[in-house]
């Protein structure tokens, strides 16, 4: 059985090695093990450092453990009484000092990186983004650019973006693992953090603090694009939406039913938290309502009965007020709310 056990102990160790070193099977835009920016990289460095130290400790303990279990097992017919050893000061000192040394090795970069990540750099250097969390959606304000957006967060690549995070209702937590660790959004308080995306891409983010019935569905996306593209995006966001006459019916329905909650002007109402997501660039959304497929059928389904898809959200259902044809026109109109 001891042979058996030996194999058992080695299995998790091997699994650690395999998974950490190869990073197999994971989503590179979601996983904390595939860092895509300096914040996540520094955190990944600490994760690796601590895992290596811990694996060393684990190996030492397991060698002693297996040796003891094999060598000092009671054997049939064995009699006599083992020596009753009281202890050993020398050994106690050894296994107090060595862990202290290992912890110091871990503690120094820990403290250094803790302060590095909390660094507040000059505000005129960095793009400022205010993140306001709601049950169950995300609002972003760019105070220096004069625009606000919802759900998908657009940032430029290769530069630090400074975030100020708060919440309108309960505590949420803003987490895009591939770019960096999370920071809580507390109602009545403002937290600061910074992130940087090295490459363009759509990074996946999640709410990490239990925030109610639809906590699971409170994802978000960070769309990172090169600076010129980002600037172009900002300019377009500032322009008012011009609708075409093709979707006039949908526009009318929107004006009657939706606009009292949803703004379609990204420059409107800055400094005041929105009541519902701004839809200026709705047509560009990566997913619908942070989680669902972005297709006409699902959008219509959502408008009819949002409570069913996302329990506890505030949007009323329009199943009784709009017939299928009206829904189709409304969806057509919504799809034109784009800045691309």
């Amino acid at each position, binding site marked *: 059985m001891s042979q058996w056990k030996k194999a058992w102990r080695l299995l998790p160790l091997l699994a650690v090695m395999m998974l950490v070193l190869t990073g197999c099977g994971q*989503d590179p835009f979601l*996983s904390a093990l595939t860092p895509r920016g300096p914040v996540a990289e520094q955190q990944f460095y600490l994760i690796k450092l601590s895992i290596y130290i811990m694996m060393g400790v684990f190996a030492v*303990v397991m060698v002693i453990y297996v040796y003891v279990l094999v060598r000092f097992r009671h054997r049939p017919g064995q009699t006599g009484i083992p*020596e009753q050893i009281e202890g050993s000061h020398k050994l106690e000192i050894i296994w107090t000092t060595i862990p202290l040394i290992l912890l110091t090795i871990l503690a120094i970069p820990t403290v250094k990186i*803790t302060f590095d990540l909390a660094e507040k750099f000059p505000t005129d250097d960095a793009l400022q983004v205010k993140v306001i969390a709601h049950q169950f959606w995300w609002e972003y304000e760019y105070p220096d650019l004069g625009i606000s957006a919802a759900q998908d967060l657009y940032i430029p690549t290769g530069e630090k973006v400074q975030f100020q995070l708060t919440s309108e209702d309960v505590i949420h937590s803003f987490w895009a693992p591939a770019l960096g660790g999370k920071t809580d959004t507390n109602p009545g308080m403002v937290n600061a953090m910074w992130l940087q995306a090295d490459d363009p891409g759509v990074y996946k983010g999640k709410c*990490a603090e239990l925030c109610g019935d639809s*906590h699971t569905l409170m994802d978000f996306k960070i769309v990172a694009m090169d600076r010129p593209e980002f600037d172009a995006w900002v300019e377009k966001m500032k322009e008012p939406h011009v609708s075409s006459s093709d979707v006039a019916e949908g526009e009318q329905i929107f004006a009657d039913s939706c606009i009292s909650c949803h703004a379609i002007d990204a420059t409107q109402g800055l400094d005041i938290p929105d009541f519902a997501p701004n839809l200026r660039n709705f047509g560009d959304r990566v997913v619908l309502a942070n989680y669902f497929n972005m297709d006409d059928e699902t959008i219509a389904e959502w408008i009819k009965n949002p409570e069913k898809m996302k329990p506890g959200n505030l949007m009323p259902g329009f199943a009784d007020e709009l017939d299928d044809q009206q829904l189709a026109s409304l969806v057509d109109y919504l799809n034109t709310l784009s800045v691309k």
Partner: protein
Amino acid sequence: MYLLAGGFFFLLGGLEALLIRIQLMYPDLDIFVGGTFNQLLTMHGTTMIFFAAMPIIFALLNAIVPLQIGARDVAFPFINALGLWLFFLGGVILNASWFLGAGAPEAGWTAYAPLSTPAFSHMGVDFYVLGLQVAGIGTWLGGINFLVTIINMRAPGLTFMRLPMFTWTAFVTSALVLFAFPAITVNLILLMFDRLFGGAFFNADMGGNVVIWQHLFWIFGHPEVYILILPAFGIVSDVISTFSKKRLFGHSAMVFATVLIGFLGFMVWAHHMFTVGMGPIANSLFALATMLIAVPTGIKIFNWLFTMWGGQVRINTASLWSIGFIPTFLIGGMTGVMLGVAPADFQYQDTYFVIAHFHYTIVGGMVFGLFSGMYYWWPKMFGKMLNEKLGKWNFWTFFIGFNLTFFPQHFLGLMGMPRRVFTFLPNAGLEMGNFVSTIGAFGMTLSILIFLLNIVITNRSEQTVPADPWDGRTLEWTIPSPAPEYNFAQTPLVRGLDALWVEKMEGNGQISYAEPLGRIHMPSPSVLPFLMAIGLTFAAFGFIYHTWFVAATGLIFTFVLMSIRSVKDDPGYYIEVEDIDEGVKV
């Protein structure tokens, strides 16, 4: 009683866990979603911590601590009974929420404000607030009782440094209960004011502060972790020592490590809150304090290994659980240090990595320890030995199931799976880990069923067990199995660490006594503790339903009973010498 009630709640909490794992077996399942899932996870956590882990520990403390210190009973049997009923009825109040009101609480076992305030949750949380207060009083009374018992009722010669490790850990755990539970009580009262009387402690719009809840919760919550794990350390120490046929290596180092862990346990609460925004100074300090705890814990691991070193290690179910404890708890402890690295914790916090970590400490640590203690002391508690064959099945299915369940969760967390989510999307590398984890949960379920079967079979078997079936070292093995109601016919005289072993080595074969055989004074049974607890339960339901009349009646009822208890003399009764079994020869 504690064991029965704790076991019942353990099965309940386990069932909730299994349902959670079933929902997460495949991506995009919709068996338990939204609020229902949140109710399950809240009740699983709350039940397991407060109503399964705590009472089962208290059961062992109750059964074994008096025996290890040569006492006839705990210091305050009345308070003991009161504590039991308060805990049990607290659990009943909490679980009544499934059937009354709007469903079980759904704000997580941590009940973070403002999600737990009335603006964002239904009345299930009222059951949580009141149930935990009632149960908390019971637990706190229990803690005081054990402290007094261990300080005052040790047999002659049993100095503190001669106490067996289990009693030492019981002592430190009780001290932690004494200081930690007031924090959660204060917190629950603040929340109760917010919920029932329109308070605004946690309402940011009215000048409240939501982070206060987290501080007070973890000032309780972190010591609570050590309340749970320390007795398991004690069990493992005693079991490994007995089955290695050696005294515990570095007994005094172990004692100081235990005290140090208990002390540091109060210094690290904010490592649960690195992402809350406390700033780099607080985060660094709490990170360093957290890492420090690894040192006394490491001392313990090495002392266990060196207790076995040079011994004759007997493998049976009781010792298997303790031997299995070492690597699993080690993993839990190591991931604990990893979590203490504040910037890395920004990635771990609130993910499945944390779930994996604390299940490795609480299940891989505490539950393994409790099973070890259960198999070890079962003959002393019930006079029968649990079946060894089923016991081995019990261990191996649990050991394999446990590792299958929780080991993959480390990676799920790092790969971007937050905790407390009811589903996950396909094609993000999360399917495999979740599937394996659910299979493991079934393995653990099978193991628990085997354990139940073992209890039934053992209970039916006709066997008698000698006083000292394991070649034990401490005082509990000097009296018959099961222990008689007066425990010790004569108070023993202790002449060293491992009192019984000392006598065995000197060839005495039995413990010496500190007093001649005489009649034994016993407390009378009383219905008052039960009625007092009923009074408080009534009051709790009164508060939950805002019927102040009922609440006041319940409270007054309890106060009247307390007065009766204060003025009425309880003469107790005596067990005469003829009715006492002579001490047993070992």
